[in-house]
């Protein structure tokens, strides 16, 4: 079953009167439960592509269908609601809310979704335990290491069981050991919860873990290697 279907996607900017095509007629299909890395050099259009798939940016042309729904037709209000209920985000620099505890950072998104207290508490406890922070639930971000903060971010992205998770350079700020642990964790959660992961990365260690690698160059898909691990 396809979760994401991208057809003829184009994103062009005008920079100092010059047209720059960041994403150039990209076609991409992502199936449920895939663990996909989008790789390519800086400026190849990875982040722009993910932003458009995540509903954060509007394409110049082309369509993006998530579960058969064309999100390019949604207005900004509908897009915010779509993101809240369908997509989990993991950012390079964690982006946790410093005044909230790990538990509150994770529960916040579920509360915005309108989940009841009991469901929220159970799921937050379950997911934080799954990412190995069951004993740090009441710690604030500044009391956690970088790796622990990124694990909270993973828990936050997964808490509401989204259709897919977009992770933009999730390991860029982490050391090797922490990266390894985080990737193992995400892989485990991907398998256990069958949540689709879509990464953009430079990191070879992430590439090594991916089961599908999409290579972008100058905004075009130049390589798409599926079922690498199988």
């Amino acid at each position, binding site marked *: 079953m396809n979760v994401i279907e991208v057809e003829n996607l184009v994103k062009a900017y005008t920079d100092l009167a010059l047209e720059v095509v960041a994403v150039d007629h990209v076609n991409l299909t992502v199936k449920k439960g895939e663990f996909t890395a989008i790789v390519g050099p800086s400026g190849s259009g990875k982040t722009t592509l993910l932003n458009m798939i995540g509903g*954060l940016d509007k394409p110049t042309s082309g369509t993006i269908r998530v579960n058969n729904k064309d999100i390019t037709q949604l207005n900004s*209000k509908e897009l915010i609601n779509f993101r*809240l209920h369908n997509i989990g985000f993991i*950012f390079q620099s964690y982006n946790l*809310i410093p*005044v909230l505890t790990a538990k509150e950072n994770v529960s*916040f998104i579920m*509360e*915005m979704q309108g989940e009841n207290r009991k469901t929220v508490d159970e799921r937050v406890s379950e997911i934080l335990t799954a990412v190995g922070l069951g004993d740090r639930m009441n710690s604030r971000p500044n009391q956690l290491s970088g790796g622990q903060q990124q694990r909270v971010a993973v828990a*936050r992205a997964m808490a509401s069981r989204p259709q897919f998770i977009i992770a933009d350079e999730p390991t860029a700020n982490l050391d090797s050991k922490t990266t390894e642990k985080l990737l193992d964790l995400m892989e485990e959660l991907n398998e256990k919860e069958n949540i689709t992961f879509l990464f953009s990365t430079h990191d070879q260690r992430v590439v090594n873990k991916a089961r599908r690698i999409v290579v972008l160059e100058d905004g075009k898909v130049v390589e798409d290697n599926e079922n690498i691990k199988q």
Partner: protein
Amino acid sequence: MKEIIKIAWKNVWRNKKRSVTVVVAVILGISAGIFACGVMQGWVEQRIDAVIYIENGRIKLYNPDFLNNEEINNVIPNKEAVEHFLNKETVIKAFSERVKLMAMATTSRGSTSLMLQGINIDDEKKVSKLYTCLLQGTYFEEETSRPVLISDKTAEQLRIKNYVLTTEILDSLENTASIPNTVIASLRSIENIRFESENKMKKEISSLLDRKDVSKYGFDVLKMSEQYRLRSKIVFTFTDKQGELVNQIYKVCGVYKTANIMYDQSNAFVLKSDLSTIAGLNEGEIHETGIILRENANEENVQSAIKKAFPELSVLTWKELSPDASLVSEYMSIYLFIFVGIILFALAFGIINTMLMAILERTKELGMLMAIGMNRKRVFSMIMLETVFLTMAGAVAGMLAGWLLIQVTGMTGLNFSSFVDGFEAMGWAAIVYPTIDLFFFFGITVLVIVTGVLSSIIPARKALSLNPVEAIRMNN
């Protein structure tokens, strides 16, 4: 919404130093504003109290001609019927009938013109609190032939007032005015010496004490040394009913002082029976009736009723008799709200600035929140609540501090005696007892919330204008 309230409250205390600075500024601004309003309200209420309970009563009745020409013959017509009507009206608490004559007061040392008011003591006490303003002597309680009650200002003008530090006063200075023994010892050289004017006394005190002691204790010493020559004789000259000039000697039985120098220097009081007889007025002939109403009675309604019954009379409320006090009373709330509004307006700039700084620092975080699905309504609510919380945290403490300050000074009074002449010349008390009413407090609470909400608009709009993609990319 619960999660938004929680995060907004926590965000307020994210940068404690900055938030505390803003909160302290709000506390100082609001408490000072409320206290200043309390002082103003206290002053106005004291002024209105004096206008009603000393100077005018709530309503006064006249022969219309008397208002244009204070002539002895312009007495209230049909007085018995008026009396009967006033006695019958249940909303009228008391009334006092007066005889009023313009007179020249003369002593061997000075003279002044004033309005001589003939009163009935028992009736007058029910209408006027003047008997509470006595400095020395009695309110016609001594068995004296033709007693007169004059003001401190009139005593000064007639040189009945003088200054002397008696042995008893000097002995009591340490306890009553906390004046050190060394200063009292220096003052002993003028013990029991009488000075005829304030200037002479001041000069003598200045020569005995050093400048620091003069500025610290001079005012108290001067006030304590004030003496009046009670039972002094004053000759009053006025025109009687037949148009003849009449001279009559009265003896000072007491000296009063209100907060209104203008009133003081133009009014002296004698017994109505004495004045009527000498002026040749008949038993029932009076020039003015002062009326006090019961609590909650509407003076305009009573005025209309009297006017309807006696169209030939001039029926004036205190508002018409003292338009200045009425104007201040009427627009007082507006003045106070404008005053507090100006303070809040200034504070709003500080709050907006703080919130804009907070948003600038949290651009990336706000971008993330919008990216993960926080909608515009929630972002706006969060910023608005943060601003309101920041404002209210200071405002509640500021209002409490202002209220406490008013309660304390409302009991002790604030002494502006150093500026006494300036204030009293305008009819305002030198010692003010600040007060504030609940309506005003409620109004301020609403204003503070409105300020918080309005102050949040610019920062919230700034937050809403962020593009999540660009905000997340920022390095802050």
